[in-house]
């Protein structure tokens, strides 16, 4: 599991941790059943506060990406191929929503945005 935290980013640190772990899960880099380090240990290792890690783990659990076994810790959920795709879409959609607010602020129409996206993508 790789996590890089930026202290100068606009994003809260727990959000950065959440996004990086969820991306690794959705790309299949972290497999179902993998156990996450205990919260207090992760805080020391990531050099962040305990509550920051707690919040990131809670966010992952709310998204259904990890689950907690009392007394044992947190594990990555085993997702079927369809669930994986569905969750990936949810994540990408969230990002798109904020991107689209930005395009709208310039008064771009959908066709223009698609055209621009195509240029960048290719």
């Amino acid at each position, binding site marked *: 599991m790789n996590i890089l935290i930026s202290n100068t980013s606009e994003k809260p640190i727990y959000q950065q941790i959440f996004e990086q772990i969820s991306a690794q899960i959705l790309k299949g880099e972290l497999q179902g059943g993998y156990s996450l380090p205990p919260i207090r240990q992760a*805080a*020391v290792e990531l*050099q962040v*506060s*305990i509550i920051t890690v707690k919040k990131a783990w809670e966010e992952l659990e709310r998204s259904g990406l990890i689950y907690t076994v009392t007394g044992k810790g947190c594990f990555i959920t085993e997702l079927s191929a369809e669930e994986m795709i569905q969750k990936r879409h949810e994540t990408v959609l969230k990002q798109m929503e904020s991107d689209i607010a930005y395009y709208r602020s310039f008064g771009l129409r959908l066709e223009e945005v698609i055209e621009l996206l195509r240029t960048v993508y290719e």
Partner: protein
Amino acid sequence: MIMLDVKNVSKKFEHFQLDNVSFQVPQGYIMGFIGINGAGKTTTIKSILNLITVDSGEIQIMGKNVAIHEAELKQSIGYAFGNVDFYTRSRIRTLTKVVKTFYDNWDDEAYRRYVRKFKLIEDKRIAELSTGMKVKYSLAIALSHGAKLLILDEPTSGLDPAARDDLLDIFRELVQDGEISILFSTHITSDLEKCADYITYIHEGRIVGSAEKDEFIDTYRLVNGKVEELEGIKERLISHRVNSFGFTGLIRADELPPSAAVNVAIPNLEEIMVYYSKKEAAHV
């Protein structure tokens, strides 16, 4: 469990007062105690240590009143600050021999362990220690008598970034087992962004806010807009400044008018502190 409970503490001095100060530090977490110089951080800490008598209110440590159980509770408190200014000509070895006699639960083996861990040279005189080493020495003493509540007054002031980072790592390790709590007073707010779980902010002797760190920060917003927009929002701003890019000000998130034509951003601890300190005394 609540490790430290400061309840409605007031203390009046000629030119300054602590006014109804209340906050709690839960066991196993780090509380950042912030405020500009003269805001009341050290006076609050002195009240906690029963070094000054409060006019009203109560301070409890592990459920016991500090004013009544002072001697007993001090066995469980460790106090560290940037400057160890007593017995500066004594060697560490000599000073420790004196200090250890004050504590019932002194653990020589733990002391040896921390001396090694912190790379303290026992032959050195206190005056010869760097600021970082002085803090580490205070910590070694605190941890060797089994302190459960560490009160650190500006422990990172005067340290270079590498030494600060080193100390922050130590603080996080100390609370890892969930036993020890740390009250960490500082005006270097960047140290807290990466290590504090909770923030208590004191300004002119009053607690402005005390909450989980992200929640505390989320109470505020930085707003930026055209000078023409300023009049409509000015009353709600904690303080603001105007320049050729318009105005920028700090506002409580719940005071932010939903329709205002302004840019909104999340501030950091330093910005909250800076804008608060600009607030005119008349508004406080």
